[in-house]
């Protein structure tokens, strides 16, 4: 097994928005682009996805039956970046950071999903799972 596979996930996408608009689309209108059909607890029954815009705010899906948490905001610095404590399933306790930076007339959006464990198989076994499973790890914002 390559050590590369446990590195943080990094993705970059360019959009024609200014950073403030890109940040707003990403955080305030999540339901307009999030693939809820395949990536949510309730699937097509999801009516909305809400990210509360403040440190300690919740990210959750909304259905007729109520709400289901996806994560908690650890850092909130519009329109530059935000960080989430990710609380879904096996990835519980990992972190997702999204950064927005102006590039030409548009915005570069960089996403990093980290905390899946180190490349050492022993670390994966002994501490990697602790990281992933710790449901409510106390973390400070940076």
């Amino acid at each position, binding site marked *: 097994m390559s050590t590369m596979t446990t590195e943080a*996930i990094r993705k970059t996408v360019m959009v024609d928005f200014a950073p403030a608009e890109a940040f707003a689309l990403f955080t305030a209108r999540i339901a307009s*682009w999030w693939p809820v059909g395949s990536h949510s607890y309730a699937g097509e029954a999801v009516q909305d996805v809400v990210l509360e815009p403040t440190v300690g705010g919740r990210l959750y899906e909304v259905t007729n039956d109520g709400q289901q948490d996806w994560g908690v905001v650890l850092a909130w610095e519009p329109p530059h970046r935000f960080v989430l404590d990710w609380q879904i399933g096996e990835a519980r306790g990992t972190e997702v950071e999204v950064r927005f930076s102006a590039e030409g007339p548009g915005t570069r959006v960089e996403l990093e999903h980290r905390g899946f464990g180190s490349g050492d198989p022993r670390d994966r076994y002994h501490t990697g799972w602790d990281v992933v499973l710790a449901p409510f790890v106390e973390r400070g914002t940076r």
Partner: protein
Amino acid sequence: MLDALGDATRRSIFESLKSGPRSVGELAEGLPVSRPAVSQHLRVLKEAGLVSDSRDGTRRLYRIEPDGLLRVRDYFDGFWSEALERFREAARKETG
């Protein structure tokens, strides 16, 4: 796959396996659920690739599958590609 550890009992079973391989009977002793229930939970964890089992004499031992973590990462790698592509599409529609 993402719901395999969404259940509190399954998380307890998984936590128990961190200290080493266990049989269904050993796992059931420390939990307020029946052996068949433990077996059912182990089946879900096994299908998600999070635990594996092997025969040890007359009994079957369950253990954590270390590579399960890599599968979780790979799952999210594909997920974020799809999600960001949809984000880009939504931005393109809004900017016309």
